[in-house]
């Protein structure tokens, strides 16, 4: 298998590593969205606690 010259191989290598980077970044972005949902749930619990304490 003849080796590709650097000019031809470069975009493929960069593409492969960018795919990996994109996967990790996409995962982090999805986890950030989930984190914000968890924050919403914490806020909801805080609101319910305030309601309960206010009603008591």
């Amino acid at each position, binding site marked *: 298998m003849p080796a590709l010259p650097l000019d031809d191989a470069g975009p493929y290598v960069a593409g492969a590593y960018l795919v*990996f980077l994109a996967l990790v970044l996409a*995962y982090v972005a999805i*986890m950030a969205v989930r984190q914000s949902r968890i924050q919403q749930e914490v806020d909801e619990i805080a609101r319910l606690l305030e309601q309960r304490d206010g009603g008591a």
Partner: protein
Amino acid sequence: MRPTFGRGLKTLSIASAVILTAAFAMVFFYAPNDADQGFIQKIFYLHVPLAIVALCGFVAGGIYGLKHLRSGDRAHDLRSYVAIHQALILGVGALATGSIWARAAWGHWWVWDEPTLVSFLIVFLLFACYQPLRFSIEDPERQARYAAVFAVVGGAFVPLNFMAVRLAESLTHPRVLSTTGGAMPGSMRITFLLSLVAMAILFITLCKYELSAKSTRIQLRGMRRRLAGEDDGLALGRSAAPQQV
């Protein structure tokens, strides 16, 4: 007592970033270009660790599935789910980077008569059915039990598949992990091993990250239901992810 999934996450995150950066730096600044493939071989340091760690993740999912079946502990079900989920993500990476390498080296994005490629795709597609299977079962107990059986069978299939492929005669796919070490020089081998370790640590970090997030969400939902005066029973709605720990 609930398991603490997030313990050591900060240390693991830092270790992942440092080791992954060091591994990639070694790939481009320390490891020599391959005499046969040239610069395109640099993909190997990413593609092979992705594939190996993904397959190990599937096996780990099976082991946790077995633990769940033996103990009934829902934490093992969550671990099994997360391990398979992460392995699928790395599997996508392995398939994508492998296709890019194949296009550059062979002139084709995919070669259907190559046992290594097709067997990995079969394993990947098998585990891609895991989440739909879970989603199709509403009862959490049955969902966890059936998913664990699936994970055990799938996890056992991975090494069998690996051995079958090794026994097959392949003329095209390079063999880099063999008893002779694939004839890699020391600098390439060290770089490869560091890349493998980096990928494994990244996998563990992402697993712990997701375990921690899912566990926290499950606990929060339980607390909200209790505060709202709702029954903390099984009326949780349909989801592929475990909803109890």
